[in-house]
């Protein structure tokens, strides 16, 4: 995917030089291996800082809400879907955006690589054709790229941007996968097992709110966890509070979540928070036939209704 870098720079240069946009949002090369930094450039002389490889997992749509200027934005499949959601939710106007689409082959899960390296950080990492190599001290590790993909990328069915003004490469083949095997596994458990499963899942939570803040959908001026009158959820590490946070956070992104995986990627303690959101995604697909961020002129499922919506348990 590094080959996209040149095309991204070219596009950014053209857009800025022709004054089509005021800024371009993309990534610049990170200061440590397997990390890149979201970056905003304002002038042509900065375009060579733009960079692309398989470590651009953070969702750039997160930087769009309420921007007043004209923005060029580099967007992979999931970013583009979140841009669609932002447009639907009036966070940004389509006319303000110039979308540089990136057909994506999945992003690397840094955590998985670190685990494979027994927690030892690499000093150097390189992407080869289909492979990833990391080096530090005596440990020189090369593995299949697919082995290190983020969980959400493995089951991604929208690798190509759904909306764009230009593409930096040929469209890639979309995967035909069953997205919900893990959800079904949990559904098959007994209620008590499910409760315990989630209790264990969120046990290491620090309440740093990185999952919330990395999420492009979380743009409320005041989040419910910060509300004081009433205080919906306590501030301590009490497990009911932590659970309330995760539960309501997940519910808040119902019908909007594109499964971009930014939440899991950001989590410092490796909680698979997508286990909450994917259930909602599955239900919404089954009940209302809706997939978030795919069609630009369809109201999100919780902002509309059909007279004959299923109501299995209403008396």
């Amino acid at each position, binding site marked *: 995917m590094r080959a996209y870098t040149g095309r991204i720079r070219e596009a950014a240069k053209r857009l800025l030089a022709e004054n089509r946009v005021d800024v371009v949002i993309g990534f610049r090369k990170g200061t440590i291996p397997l990390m890149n930094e979201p970056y905003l450039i304002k002038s042509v002389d900065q375009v060579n800082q733009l960079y692309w490889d398989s470590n651009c997992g953070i969702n750039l749509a997160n930087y769009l809400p309420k921007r007043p200027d004209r923005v060029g934005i580099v967007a992979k499949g999931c970013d583009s879907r979140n841009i669609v959601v932002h447009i639907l939710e009036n966070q940004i106007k389509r006319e303000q955006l110039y979308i540089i689409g990136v057909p994506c082959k999945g992003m690397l899960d840094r955590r998985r690589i670190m685990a494979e390296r027994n927690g030892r950080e690499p000093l150097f990492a390189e992407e080869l054709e289909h492979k990833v190599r990391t080096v530090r001290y005596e440990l020189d590790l090369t593995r299949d790229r697919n082995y290190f993909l983020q969980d959400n990328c493995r089951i991604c069915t929208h690798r190509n941007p759904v909306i764009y003004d230009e593409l930096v490469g040929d469209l890639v083949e979309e995967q035909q996968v069953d997205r919900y095997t893990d*959800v079904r596994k*949990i*559904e098959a458990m007994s*209620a*008590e*097992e*499910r*409760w*315990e*499963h*989630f*209790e264990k899942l969120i046990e290491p939570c620090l309440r740093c709110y990185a999952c919330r803040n990395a999420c492009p959908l979380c743009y409320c001026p005041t989040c*419910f966890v910060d509300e004081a009158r*009433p205080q*919906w959820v*306590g501030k*301590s*590490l*009490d*497990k*009911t*509070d932590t*659970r*309330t946070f995760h*539960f*309501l956070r*997940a*519910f808040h992104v*119902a*019908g909007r979540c594109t499964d971009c995986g930014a939440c899991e990627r950001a989590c410092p303690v490796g909680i698979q928070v997508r286990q*909450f959101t994917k*259930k*909602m995604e599955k*239900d*919404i697909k089954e*009940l*209302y036939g809706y997939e978030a961020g795919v069609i630009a002129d369809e109201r999100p*499922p*919780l*902002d*509309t*209704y059909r*007279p004959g*919506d*299923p*109501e*299995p*348990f*209403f*008396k």
Partner: protein
Amino acid sequence: MSEWEPKIVAFLCNWCSYGSADLAGVSRLQYPHNIRAIRVPCSGRVNPKFILAALRQGADGIWVSGCHPGDCHYIEGNLYARRKFTLLKNLLDYTGMEPERLHFSWISSAEATKFAETARGVVDAVKTLGPARHFIKREAEVA
């Protein structure tokens, strides 16, 4: 020894279900006293936060009731609510909450009998489950 009695928080819409509760009262219909009614303008006004808040404070069961679909005073509030609660209940079930703690119904202001019947049904269902075990915060569990 006094027997345990469940506490049920009922969010009743002002225009229908709350009216039916009133009518049940003036019609001298019997229904269990476990119901704590909270009057809301519309079932669509009920935020999932309210339900979580009630559970956290020790409600053994939750009951949300509004106008029949098509009869909403605000035309469509209950239709949005229907989607919201369907997903909410599914997510609560999925994360391990007993499904029988949550109840939803459509009761018009004329259906006092249905109100009393549903109230009995809700209380019976929650009684079978016993006291709430999940999502209650009795004190902060910290070091």
